[in-house]
């Protein structure tokens, strides 16, 4: 299954923090929906009006899909999806 890598900025919002989770899905959208089904507390950080939050960066196997194609980007067994929300600690 694809794997979602969760940075500290997202782990801190999870009821049961995990560094990474394996989720089923054929696209980025599938996997993120599976993630928020299991962890609904992340929904408002990842999505706004059913679209990816514009400031959330998503990387698939160390590549950056175009924002408007991100949710439809195909993933495969072993794919690593990295989610990086904006942070500003200084």
């Amino acid at each position, binding site marked *: 299954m694809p794997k979602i*890598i969760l*940075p*500290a*900025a997202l*782990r*801190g919002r999870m009821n049961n923090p995990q*560094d990474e989770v394996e989720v089923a899905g054929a696209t980025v959208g599938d996997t993120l929906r599976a993630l928020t089904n299991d962890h609904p507390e992340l929904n*408002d*950080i990842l999505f706004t009006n059913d679209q990816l*939050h*514009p*400031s959330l*960066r998503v*990387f698939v196997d*160390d*590549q*950056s899909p175009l924002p408007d194609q991100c949710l439809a980007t195909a993933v495969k067994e072993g794919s690593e999806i*990295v989610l*990086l*929300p*904006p*942070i*500003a*600690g*200084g």
Partner: protein
Amino acid sequence: MLTDFEKERYGWQMDVPGVGEAGQEKLKHARVLISRAGGVGGLVAFQLAAAGVGTLRIAHAGNLKPSDLNRQLLMTHGHLGRPRAECIKQTLSDLNPLIEIDVIAENMSAENAPRLVGDVDVVIDCAPLFPERFAMNDEAMRQGKPLIECPMYDSDAYLTFFQPGRTGCLRCLHPETPPEWKRRFPVFGAVSGTVACMAAYEAIKYITGIGTNLRNTLLHGDLATMRFRRLPIERRADCPYCPPVNERRSNA
């Protein structure tokens, strides 16, 4: 020209291949702006002062609070309740009296950014609020100045080097302020200091010409898992804040 004392003081770093006296002269004549000298910016300033960057301009308002002291290593217990700007100036002057330290008791805003960015060579963004970061970004892009972005949160550290005309900018990376961002964030000084030292070296590399800057690349380090990744980032084609890719600007 470097003095004999400067050659002795900076001798070990002048031994780094590609630096030498010429590189140290570049550092001596460089001007760097740092937005806030907290857990990240304070360590950036400390490293650049130690390295002999000729002029450091630091923007940081307010008085020192006890809750600053776990990470803001330029600050000292004896300055509690007094302006942070005083403490920043004193600590850096004690470390290196050979350089100019211009501490301004203001935080970055759209109003003061043109003045503060105006005559520097590199800008380093260490503010804890997105409006300050965006104000600095927008002015750096407008004036064609390189911007080192080095935020952290908990065990996360991000680092990238924005250069107008050659990369995107902060607005390309994160177009909007996240509504959930809070002024108070979880932090050990060891984490903020780690990203700070890497950001300082990005500035040193740019000024001296050694190494390779993190252009079009976002370094993400998670110090809890010690997983580090280099991730590709890009200029947004419709970004209204970036100059055109091929437009030559100062320092480009």
